[in-house]
């Protein structure tokens, strides 16, 4: 298959359709409007359903319904719209339904701006909605990953009966890079005997999240947590470059990962031993590997477009063995490799605070 030049948001959308997307329910918000536009244009012509919902709240509840009925279904939005979806996401996680939710992050809080940011990490990874649940969170770092991780998202969602979030940002969504589409995902034909398809010759199926008897609810929660333990054991993904001999390891995902990569290469050209650790799954966070990389004479530098959210998970993983610092920008500003390189110099020259 040929490589074609495509915008990130459109590559994501194309990959979703090839993965057998049956329905897309969404609502306009900048900077993800290319996704509903692509879906409106293409999905109905390729066997799927497109519907613009009346709000992000309605859209996530449409996703719940379609997912419960056994269909591959997706929604996308950006930060304020993802906030609106939190109740619905909690319900989808509680009912253990598969679906894909795309967040093309913009700067917040509040209405904020439409520039890229990474301020929704806590919301994505630590909960966002109420109750004890987890989303599988994937962080693409280039347009090819916008496609590949979307295919993976549908497979993981079906495999684990869990919502999967693709945490992107405005730069990745808008940028154009060459992309090649793989064959369709592996789990498209997965049987879903639990789905509400009409009780023909069987007992009725019930998709429900109400769990009102406490001891039974506790047992159900324990089963859910056991599922999350299995996901943590099997699905953590990351990329590392130059970490073996590194004195400083940069940790960054998405656009920050790209900036960190450039900073790493600039530092190496100056003779500094700098490596890159790029998480690809933000949940499960690749903590085991980070733990292995932690040494007392090594320093970690988190690179984020936020006040510092992922850095807390780096600190947890590293567990006091190495110092951890932050290089960040806010308000929609994007860190430059020079910003990060300056911070590396502070660390290496013992001037860091």
């Amino acid at each position, binding site marked *: 298959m040929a490589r074609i030049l495509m915008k990130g948001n459109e590559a994501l959308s194309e990959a979703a359709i090839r993965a057998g997307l049956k*329905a897309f329910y969404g609502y306009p918000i900048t900077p993800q409007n290319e996704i509903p536009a692509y879906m409106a244009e293409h999905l109905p012509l390729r066997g799927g*359903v497109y519907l613009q919902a*009346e709000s992000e709240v309605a859209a996530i509840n449409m996703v719940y*319904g379609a997912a419960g009925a056994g269909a591959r279904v997706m929604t996308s939005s950006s930060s304020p719209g993802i906030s609106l979806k939190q*109740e*619905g996401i909690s319900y989808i996680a509680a009912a253990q339904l598969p679906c894909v939710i795309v967040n093309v992050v913009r700067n917040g809080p509040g209405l904020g701006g439409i520039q890229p940011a990474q301020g929704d990490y806590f919301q994505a990874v630590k909960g966002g909605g109420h109750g004890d649940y987890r989303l599988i969170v994937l962080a693409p770092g280039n347009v090819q990953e916008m496609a590949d991780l979307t295919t993976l998202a549908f497979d993981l969602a079906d495999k684990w009966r869990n919502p999967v979030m693709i945490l992107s940002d405005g730069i990745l969504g808008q940028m154009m890079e060459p992309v090649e589409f793989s064959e369709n995902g592996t789990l498209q034909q997965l049987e879903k005997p639990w789905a509400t*398809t*009409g009780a023909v010759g069987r007992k009725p199926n019930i998709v429900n999240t109400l769990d009102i008897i406490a001891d039974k609810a506790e047992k159900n929660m324990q089963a859910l947590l056991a599922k999350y333990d299995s996901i943590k054991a099997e699905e953590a993904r990351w990329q590392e470059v130059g970490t073996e001999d590194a004195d400083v390891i940069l940790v960054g995902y998405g656009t920050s990962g790209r900036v960190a990569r450039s900073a790493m290469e600039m530092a190496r050209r100056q003779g500094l031993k700098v490596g890159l650790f790029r998480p690809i799954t933000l949940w499960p966070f690749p903590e085991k590997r980070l733990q292995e990389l932690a040494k007392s004479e090594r320093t970690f530098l988190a690179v984020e477009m936020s006040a510092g959210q992922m850095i807390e998970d780096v600190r947890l993983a590293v567990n006091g063995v190495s110092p951890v610092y932050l290089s960040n920008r806010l308000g929609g500003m994007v860190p430059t490799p020079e910003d990060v390189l300056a911070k590396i110099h502070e660390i290496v020259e013992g001037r860091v605070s």
Partner: protein
Amino acid sequence: MQTVFQKPEALTDVQMHYCPGCTHGIIHRLVAEAIDSLGIREQAIGVASVGCSVFAYDYFNCDMQQAAHGRAPAVATGIKRVRPDNIVFTYQGDGDLASIGMAEIVHAAARSENITVIFVNNAIYGMTSGQMAPTTLLGQKTATSPRGRTAEEMGYPIKMCELLATLEGPAYLTRVSTHDSRHVLQAGRAIKKAFEMQQQKKGFALVEVLSTCSVNWGMTPVDALKWVEQNMVPYYPLGVYKDVTAKEGN
């Protein structure tokens, strides 16, 4: 002797938890009777809402989904769009449909979503112990209108059939009552028609059923039926507000 009345197949054997005399029980049975008589139990997918009827998924003997408060029309839309040959219905109270779910019901109606909505209007929030609802009448005392609802403070009760009838989308809108056996039988016929509308792919169908809440209204079940007749019917007139299958001159 032949059996001329028995529990419908579309109701499970689970004993319903509703208060004594609550019309939810009657309405559940009418829905189940409609499903049985149309032979659609195996095609049906119901969406339970949040309110006293939250456990409806235990009472209807068909596939069921439990929706967040107010969102049942969106959940039903999500299901129907991917499973257009199934019969999808929602069962909602007045808080669920006319308060938190107002956007969802208006837009599902505007889209003429091919679903069937059973709207149980008893002018109060039952499950949460008797707060004011969008359909609570002026002067009616509730837990959050203890001196009686006033228009100045709390606005006017909302007439859903009339409101939705302003839209092009709906195919069938009707308001019925449960305050005596004649009206219960009429309600049963309206509910059956609302399901037939979906079978015939006519579009959005809603039946608003005037209902009681004897416990939170503070009266016996028999008196509660009279209260519906004397107080609710005058404000919420019974009748057909939209019917795309009605022929001219009928």
